[in-house]
């Protein structure tokens, strides 16, 4: 599974922002703060971020992620719905 994480991307909105970095990688884990650990990463614009060439795994702070783009065919909506339903029932108890 490959997902795009765009940390702190404000260039689209026209704000000056030094960190408009987008990363593609495989989701390893997520925690309660929605911090993300990615493995086997690649940067979408390597010319701008040459120092990322030697990094294969990374941890990204949740608060600075603008959005995460997931490939639609990799998402099992049925499984997700069931899991969400179960979680909601558990929380009620």
């Amino acid at each position, binding site marked *: 599974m490959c997902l795009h994480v765009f940390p702190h991307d404000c260039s689209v909105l026209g704000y000056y922002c030094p*960190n408009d970095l987008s990363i593609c990688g495989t989701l390893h*884990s997520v925690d*309660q703060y929605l911090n993300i650990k990615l493995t086997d990463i690649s940067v979408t614009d390597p010319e701008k971020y040459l*120092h990322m*060439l*030697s*990094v294969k795994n990374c*941890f*990204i702070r949740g608060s600075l992620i603008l959005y995460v783009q997931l490939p639609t065919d990799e998402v099992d909506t049925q499984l997700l719905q069931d899991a969400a339903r179960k979680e909601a029932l558990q929380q009620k108890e």
Partner: protein
Amino acid sequence: RLPFPRSIVAHLWYFEVPEKHLVLLRDGRTLIGFLRSIDQFANLVLHQTVERIHVGKKYGDIPRGIFVVRGENVVLLGEIDLEKESDTPLQQVSIEEILEEQRVEQQTKLEAEKLKVQALKDRGLSIPRADTLDEY
């Protein structure tokens, strides 16, 4: 190898061997050093840290010693693959040279920004600068 958790929620994350880590900070700085500690807020303690400045294909390292970084300023923490590090197209230069290159780059960026702001002003538009906005 790390056991892959059954659910994708990990409460603990840990690194196998003391490897060099690359930290991207919110202000755009890049730090490289040995990660000595980390907590749930991503506060970091880095040892033998070097601040790496990149301009184009050149880079320069400024030795900084020990860093304690507050978690809210950390964008990304990556493990540096030492094999990959040896075959990069990047060229290391002296500190003075890279600082000069950086100064020139900032200058051109500022000038381009000025032109943009002026062009927008002429059209009756203004875009607020990111640092004048509240986070929430």
